[in-house]
């Protein structure tokens, strides 16, 4: 479902003397449907950079990133927009929403974008929020005022609202208590069971051991190591 081939990335800092920083070379991995692959490597090794290239908000310098039959390294913006709506989900570490929008709408939005009946979309959103232990009295409020852990759970609910065939998870269990961590791990297992291909970053080693089928150490993709 996800196939990365010979992927490379560099940053050119035009306002800092035009410095060119090669940060990745020769990266490759595959994620099959129903499989969860964890990215490992020290902080700064390029885990997030790789995830962002798959999501499409970082441009690849070379190589291929296939998600389904679309090569994100070469796709038009509108193809990536469509892929994100229908096929590829992303749970980032940060919640970015229009202030003032109620939590239930934030979670239902990916479904509304796909033209799902609003009542059905809100029912699905309510189900996820309840599972993630967000009290119902908060659903009508904007999540911008919530605690870090609550925002993270809203973000997860939103990411799981539409059952995407491919899913990117950036530290989904960070800042969660034991009960909610368990809910999230169950959600991940359910997504795998329905055939989702998942690429994730988990600093929580026990969580990693439980949901990941394989690990890929991105240290092997740093340009020095490849040279």
């Amino acid at each position, binding site marked *: 479902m996800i196939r990365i081939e010979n992927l490379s990335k560099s*940053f*050119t800092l035009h*306002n800092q003397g035009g410095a060119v920083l090669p940060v990745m070379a020769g990266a490759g991995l595959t994620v099959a449907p129903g499989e969860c692959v964890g990215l490992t490597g020290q902080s700064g090794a390029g885990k997030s950079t790789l995830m962002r290239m798959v999501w*499409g*908000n970082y441009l690849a310098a070379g190589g291929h990133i296939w998600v389904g039959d679309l090569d994100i390294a070469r796709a038009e913006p509108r193809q990536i927009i469509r892929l994100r709506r229908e096929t590829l989900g992303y749970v980032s570490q940060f919640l970015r929403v229009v202030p003032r929008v109620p939590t239930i709408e934030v979670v239902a939005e990916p479904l509304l*974008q796909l*033209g799902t009946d609003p009542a059905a979309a809100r029912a699905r959103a309510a189900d996820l929020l309840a599972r993630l232990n967000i009290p119902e009295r908060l659903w009508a409020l904007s999540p911008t005022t919530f605690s870090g852990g609550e925002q993270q759970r809203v973000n997860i609910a939103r990411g799981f609202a539409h059952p995407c065939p491919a899913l990117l998870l950036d530290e989904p269990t960070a800042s969660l208590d034991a009960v909610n961590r368990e809910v999230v791990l169950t959600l991940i297992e359910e997504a795998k069971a329905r055939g989702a291909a998942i690429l994730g970053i988990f600093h929580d080693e026990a969580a990693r051991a439980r949901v990941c089928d394989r690990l890929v150490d991105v240290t092997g993709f740093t340009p020095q190591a490849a040279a």
Partner: protein
Amino acid sequence: MTLHSAFPAAPLLSVSGLTKRYGARIGCADVGFDLYPGEVLGIVGESGSGKSTLLACLAGHQVPDEGRILYDGRDLRALPETERRRLSRTDWAFVHQNPRDGLRMGVSAGGNVGERLMAVGARHYGQIRGKAADWLGRVEIAADRIDDRPSAFSGGMQQRLQIARNLVTGPRLVFMDEPTGGLDVSVQARLLDLLRGLVRDLGLSVIIVTHDLAVVRLLADRLMVMKSGRVVEQGLTDQVLDDPQHAYTQLLVSSVLQV
């Protein structure tokens, strides 16, 4: 099938080589892009970068010197003036930064909305008033304000009224020039939420000019960065903001104060 219809194959607006000069000075030069139905395109750049000139050329407020604008497959510059005016009443809408430029301040709120309907042929008073009331509700203006003049409204309400006036005729393409500029941030958020809902529910295509990067991140699918009349970079909104390629975009993004 609904998914397919949400991603049509043909662009609604296709622009190439668009250039506008003011004497020897460049307004905008060699601008090209495609806008598809249901897409929101953000245009950012500092004052004087040509973004407002570009918008004015696209909306037919100014005549470009060179280039081609295809709307729904038709060459706008080859269309007769009468046909262009008809399009600007039926298919397009223009939301100005200052609501006073887009509203008639001496006419009631209901009249501001109803007037647009009459311009496209509506004559039944009850239906016009009913539709005006419906749209005031959609932009969250209380029903009992329908007979008040916009001069009695706050800035945020005036802006929402301008949006209602523009959208009541069911346009397909909406031009917006700094629609949240000059509003309090709390009012801005409400307007952003409203605009997102309308884009999603009505399938509008929108071109929004702004200098506010936070606004485009939340509203625009794609982003175009202009400097000195030229497009220096365009792409997916979050890609341009998170991994800017051009020196000017890098400067623009790194100059934003973190809240």
